[in-house]
């Protein structure tokens, strides 16, 4: 699936919920069920601190594709981190660099990406883009 296709699918999934509680229930379930980042990857270097919740993000580059895993100490944050991983993981650096990041607006979770939330998610998106950019530069130089 392309990034745009995953985003469209997420929007469809979230459109089923008209009640905010159902939406959060879904996020909480996601947050609980997603595979955790490997504990060895929960290092300070992979830690993105927000003052509200902490997010760990780790990346791996294999055969031209970037794979992300993430975790958070807060379940809702982790659920949203999982959405971001679903969108961005498993794509080429160029695809990730070019991808739009406003889809959380469309699924009614915009407030979680606002800098004032300081839950680490905005920094996580920036970090994902930064990794992609760095791998892209490395590809060009090799």
């Amino acid at each position: 699936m392309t990034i745009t296709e995953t985003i469209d699918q997420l929007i469809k999934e979230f459109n089923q919920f008209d009640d905010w509680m159902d939406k959060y229930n879904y996020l909480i379930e996601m947050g609980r069920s997603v595979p955790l980042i490997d504990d060895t990857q929960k290092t300070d270097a992979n830690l993105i601190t927000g003052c509200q919740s902490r997010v760990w993000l780790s990346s791996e580059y294999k055969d031209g594709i970037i794979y992300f895993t993430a975790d958070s100490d807060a379940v809702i944050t982790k659920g949203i981190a999982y959405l971001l991983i679903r969108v961005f993981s498993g794509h080429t650096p160029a695809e990730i660099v070019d991808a739009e990041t406003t889809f959380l607006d469309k699924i009614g979770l915009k407030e979680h990406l606002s800098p004032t939330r300081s839950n680490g998610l905005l920094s996580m998106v920036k970090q994902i883009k930064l990794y992609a950019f760095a791998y892209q530069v490395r590809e060009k130089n090799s």
Partner: protein
Amino acid sequence: MSEISEEKIRSVRNDFPILSRTIYGKPLVYFDNAATTQKPNVVIDAISNYYRNDNANVHRGVHYLSQQATGAFENVRKKVSTFVNAGSSDEIIFTRGATEAINLVACSYCETFLNAGDEIIVSVLEHHSNIVPWQVACERKSAHLKVIPVTPDGDLDLEAFGKLLNDRTKIVAISHISNALGTINDVAEIVKMAHNIGVPVFVDGAQGLSHGPVDVQKLGCDFYAFSAHKMYGPMGIGGLFGKSSWLEKMQPYQLGGEMIDRVTFEKTTYNEIPYKFEAGTPNVADVMGLGAAIDYLNELGWDFITAQEIDLLEYATAQLQAIEGIKIIGMAAHKAAIISFLIDGIHFFDAGTIMDHLGVAVRTGSHCTQPLMNNLGINGTLRASMAFYNTRQEVDKLIDAIQRVKTLFA
């Protein structure tokens, strides 16, 4: 049961227009009063009235409006002075808020009185605003920051404080009331201990002025800082009480218009206190708002305010303690209506996010007190901070919201 009639509280609530708004379609339950309090109509009106009818720059004009604005501005200085029982209104300096007042003293006092090897004492309880300016002053002067520890209940350990005091101590900076735990510190005792060896005491009163009457002469403190927005007044204004004997000896904090006496290119001499510390055009409109807030509090009376806040504190504490898995952080014997707590197994951010959607505004996180949180071995808390316009029914909604959170994350 509270002695205060529901009718009285309803009428008080009507003074605050924002309290009748809804959040996500639900009536707002505002329990973030330690971050900022809401504003009564009289405060909002005082600001808009100033701009509509009275706006002119102060201290500079012979014309009618300027004279009138200056008179009204200086009148609020007198009001603040009476409100905190300062020795004279010259001891009241207007600032942007508590933070600027702390920076003023940390810069001006330390510039003159702090030397290499000296010590400044703060406490673990402090807000970052009452740590960082002192820390940087120490770095500049190669002095040392010493820290009063807290007991597990959240009280300052005064015995340890006694041991920290010595002839190198140049100032003690402590909060009147902890914004994170609600602890009311025994400022009078701390002042007594410090003054015994001639050390002045700076009090961060950001949370102090809204919860009870403050008498700086009775407390005996040398400085007292506050923010209007935490006492039902506007944002962007606050002040510093400083004993004139200290203020006279301190260098100005900022330089510019209003604070000067004579300026030539060879030499500038400074105005008298308090003007020496008020460079530039002041925030006159918000000073008017502050004046209106003080009038409002005086009219309401501390008897009502403290009775209502004590009732809410006791009621909410009991209700919270009745819930399984709730841990209240900070159980000092003397507390303001601020309750920090944790829900077992549920991250405060998760809980706060859901409670927000239920219309209950609480604060989550470290409350700008990271050293305190580290000391307690936690990352943060949920904090419900109450004001006299809150009700027991609202506390019940907080409790309901916590129950929903517990079910959702069970």
